[in-house]
């Protein structure tokens, strides 16, 4: 039996090249499905990763109670000083979160890029923010530093460029990286400067703190909520960014899978077609084999293996193309919580790639099964007559 399977299969695969154009339909059809699916899912994956990378366990955001956006909220310098002195808080920095309308490179589409006003402590709290080019802004000067993703996505953010913000003109003095997180899509400047340009006085929107340890965030949250002077809550960065990415990730994943499923149905029809015609052009051959004593099972298995091989090839090509073209491709989208842009890189992870191949194999399996059964069950006499 194994010997029979082996022989029929090898024979099938060896004469595949002569059926090249028909077989390519399966490869391209399934390749297309895998490419579209992986393209969309890698976008969701990248979006989620870039937001989740921002979160560290021992850091927290203090913001207005009940809000979901860093944009809302007002904390006076006195509020911030009080909180900084509280137990469990190691470092704290007020942050103002505003947006500037800047065109995407090469388009006339203006998008809201995040401009974050920070205090010097911010660099200590977020140690992953590292200058890769130029220098940090000087306090009190009209200078900004720009994340690498923002610099590559939006116009006029090279070092030395002048950035008109409100009635002021700021100079870009450096580019920073931040471990691939969405922070790289932001522009940073001195809190006092941002506040003066956006007429905020000393009020910051939120406060970013580093805590003694992971558990402190919830204790601090309870303390602030109980304090009648404040209308604030504490969210650990992990919690905050996970909530921010959740909806969008679900949406893109859902969209990707829905489009993938519809395309997959189309590809199964294509695969069925190809395998049916592959079987029908070889009806006489298969019938001869069966007349010679080859059993039905080897015939079925050989047809299935052929279809699976083609499907796998399609999956590899489709997945490979997406990986080559999209992995690391930087895009940005709107963050619904604050109407500002979040930059992220598409990520074709090994897990996604593996999933793409599984889809391909399942499609190949379905596409091969019916023709295989037909090949094995068509009466030998009918088949030999070549009908």
């Amino acid at each position, binding site marked *: 039996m194994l010997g029979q399977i082996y022989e029929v299969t090898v024979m099938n695969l060896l004469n595949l090249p002569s059926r090249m154009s028909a077989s390519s339909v399966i490869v*391209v059809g399934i390749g297309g499905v895998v490419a579209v699916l992986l393209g969309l899912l890698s976008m969701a994956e990248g979006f989620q990763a870039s937001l989740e990378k921002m979160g560290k366990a021992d850091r927290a955001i203090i913001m207005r109670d*009940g809000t*979901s956006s860093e944009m809302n909220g007002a904390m006076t310098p006195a509020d911030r000083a009080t909180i900084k002195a509280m137990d469990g808080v190691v470092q704290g920095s007020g942050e103002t979160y505003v*947006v500037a309308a800047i065109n995407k490179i090469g388009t006339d589409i203006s998008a809201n890029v995040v401009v974050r006003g920070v205090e010097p402590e911010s660099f200590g709290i977020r140690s992953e923010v590292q200058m890769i080019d130029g220098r940090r802004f000087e306090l009190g000067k009209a200078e900004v530093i720009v994340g690498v993703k923002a610099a590559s996505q939006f116009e006029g953010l090279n070092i030395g460029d002048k950035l008109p913000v409100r009635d002021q003109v700021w100079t870009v003095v450096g580019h920073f990286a931040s471990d691939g997180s969405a922070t790289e899509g932001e522009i940073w400047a001195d809190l006092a400067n941002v506040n003066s340009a956006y007429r905020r006085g000393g009020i910051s929107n939120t406060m970013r703190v580093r805590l003694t340890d992971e558990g402190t965030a919830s204790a601090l949250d309870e303390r602030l909520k109980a304090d009648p002077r404040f*209308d604030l809550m504490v969210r650990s960065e992990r919690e905050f960014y996970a909530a921010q990415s959740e909806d969008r990730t679900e949406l893109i994943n859902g969209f990707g899978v829905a489009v993938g499923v519809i395309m997959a149905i189309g590809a199964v029809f294509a695969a069925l077609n190809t395998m049916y015609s592959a079987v029908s052009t070889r009806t006489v051959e298969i019938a001869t084999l069966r007349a010679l004593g080859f059993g039905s099972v080897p015939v079925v298995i050989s047809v299935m293996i052929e279809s699976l091989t083609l499907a796998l090839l399609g999956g590899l090509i489709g997945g490979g193309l997406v990986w080559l073209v999209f992995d690391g491709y930087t*895009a940005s989208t*709107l963050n619904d919580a604050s109407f500002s842009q979040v930059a992220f890189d598409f990520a074709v992870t090994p897990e996604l790639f593996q999933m793409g191949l599984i889809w391909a194999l399942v499609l190949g399996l379905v596409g091969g099964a019916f023709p295989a059964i037909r090949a094995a069950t068509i009466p030998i006499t009918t088949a030999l007559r070549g009908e």
Partner: protein
Amino acid sequence: MNIVGLMWANLFRKPMRTTLTILSVVIAFLLFGLLQSIGSAFEGGAQVAGVDRLVVAAKYSQIDNLPYAQKQQILSVEGVDGITHTSWFGGNYQDPKNFFAKFPVDPVSYFDIYNELDLQPADALERFIRERNAAVVDVALAERFGWQVGDVIPIIGTIYSKSDGDRLWEFTLVGTYSENGEASNFPLFLFNYEYFNESTAFGRDQVGQWTVRIDMPERAGEIAQQIDALFENSTDPTRTASEDEANRQFARQLGDMGFITTMIMSAVFFTIILLTGNTMSQALRERIPELAVLKTLGFTDATVSLLILGEAVMLCLLGGLLGGLLALGLGPIISAMIESFFGSFEVSNQVVLNGLGLSLVVGLLIGMIPALSAQRLAIVDALRGL
């Protein structure tokens, strides 16, 4: 048998193959119909934008508010014939996932400017004006959450709290609105600006943006410039654009939705052309001796090639038609599934027609090469079975 009948008969000589091929084409055009519709809902294209309406927003960013005091100045610009305003309230209903936009508005001017909106029941507008905490919503929202007129709808403020520090805002539903009898694709929750302005802890006497009606649409550009000039050197400079332009600017920020749709559609059509093209050339190869017989019988080269071309076009048109109808049928179901994320979309007849047009092009493309080789076919060679 006329030539169309012959095409039809040829098409179904291998029913299984043709059915499977048509089904793949159907799937391609189903996707086309759905993606086109979702794409245009994203782009704001399907949203009705009045040609006689301008949107005046803060110059630097959408998150800035404008002072209420600008109203009289804007009204003084020649050609401006009405004005209303909206503001972004934020806020959550039960769960942050139940996303929909909530705007405090002035009832009278809002429904005057957006006169395509039809408010029901008959006393809704009067109650909306009179009752402090009244709200009206898009019919689609009322349906989605099962709201009835008279229901109290609690919204937790995420930006605005009341002056006593309370973040709970309660509204009584007094009516629903629809646009020419249909739900719009950006359903709104509207409540009384006066109530908002009296109660809010901060941000008083401010609005998010103005919507202005002009009496001469052809002078829109000029009027926009005049409005912006009014505030250019004030603390609150503005940027005025047509409503259509403003909708599009906002939608584009969502990201490269158009780009994604194009990528998917290219992948789908590349696959379809290859697949169907392959089927056609296979069908042709099998039929070479037959075509030679037709030529021998006196069919001209042109007729024979038309026969092949027609078969390909027929196959694609059939797929395009069925796919378009399927998209029309499935559209509302899928729209209902995704509306909680970004409003609904609608598969329009126009989209189906576009799909049909496209399927004609695809059919011609696919049929061209086999048709040409059928035309060049020499009777002698063909009869020899080469």
